[in-house]
């Protein structure tokens, strides 16, 4: 019982203080998981992080699930996930409900409009980061080839990005290792 409560508290605090999405809360999670509660050792944490980075899906929920499982099995998974997601998901739903209620007002219309340039710039920065990570990882030539194919198929032919991601996945798994 105490273990479950501590799991809740640890993940609740790490995520409450982590602004800017999952990756931002990784150092805070480390603080709770390794330094404070000693649920994992430093080496175990880095292993978990390496795996979390290789798998799809949000990294903070993958971390929460793993630690929860280590401490208290599937109950631990549920509690750690709940503490990670529920508080801020509830807050998001409540805030957006308030906005929905006043959708017609010029106040909300202005807010909706002014959020768009910020998103454009945030996405631009992410594009830059993802491109340079990619060049770092598979080199400029492969990055550009895959990028152009993705651009043409997604933007021009409007193919569902799922297909392109799966295709890139297979290309990276079967073709790339033989080229280097």
């Amino acid at each position, binding site marked *: 019982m105490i273990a479950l409560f501590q799991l809740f508290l640890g993940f609740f605090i790490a995520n409450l203080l982590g602004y800017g999405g999952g990756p931002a809360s990784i150092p805070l999670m480390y603080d709770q998981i390794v330094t404070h509660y000693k649920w994992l050792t430093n080496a175990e944490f880095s292993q978990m992080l390496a*795996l979390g980075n290789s798998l799809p899906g949000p990294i903070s929920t993958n971390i929460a699930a793993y630690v929860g499982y280590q401490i208290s099995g599937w109950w631990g998974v549920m509690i750690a996930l709940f503490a990670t997601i529920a508080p801020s998901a509830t807050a998001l739903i409540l805030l957006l409900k308030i906005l929905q209620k006043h959708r017609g007002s010029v106040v909300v219309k*202005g807010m909706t409009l*002014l959020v768009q340039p910020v998103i454009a710039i945030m996405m631009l920065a992410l*594009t830059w980061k993802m491109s340079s*990570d990619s060049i770092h990882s598979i080199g400029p030539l492969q990055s550009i080839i895959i990028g152009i194919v993705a651009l043409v198929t997604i933007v021009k032919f409007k193919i569902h990005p799922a297909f392109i991601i799966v295709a890139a996945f297979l290309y*990276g798994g079967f073709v790339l290792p033989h080229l280097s």
Partner: protein
Amino acid sequence: MSSTYKDLIIAMGRVGILGFGGGPSVIPLFRYESVTRYHWVEDEEFGEILAIANALPGPIAPKMAAYLGYKEKGAIGAVISILAHILPTVIATVALLSIVHVLEFSKSFKDIIGAVMPVVAVMLGQMAYEFGAKAIKGLGIIVGIIVLVLSFIMLNVISIQPAIVIFLFLVYGAFHFKLRNKFLNERGK
């Protein structure tokens, strides 16, 4: 458009399974499913969801799944969307950590993640372009460009926390149309 639990599970599951490369890489996938494919929300509302999800603490993707599920099917929809989004990789994480040698596993995955990155970059770039174009259309070309440059400076030059930048723009946005009308009226006199 009315949708079913099955639609929610398929869409959110797909976003979860295909979201390689950490948190932000899934944003264009969310947009594709909820705006382009299922028409649950318009682009404007998607922008709001993203902005507020970013300004709140904690992981962004599960929150967005929760809201989209809630919007379509209430509280149960929210829970189902979150589960569909995270459960496949949660189970994979727990299972893999107990059986595989992680370092070797992540080494063989390096090329795969690397190959997916340019695709994600293209999707992020497309979103940047489309939201930039929307901002310029809504604000007019001069104000639009000023605001874009201003947010670039705030986010990337002086590196203010995104949550704070979003908050400041929301506050200004609340007064934007009032100020604009006042300005136009005075000029019209």
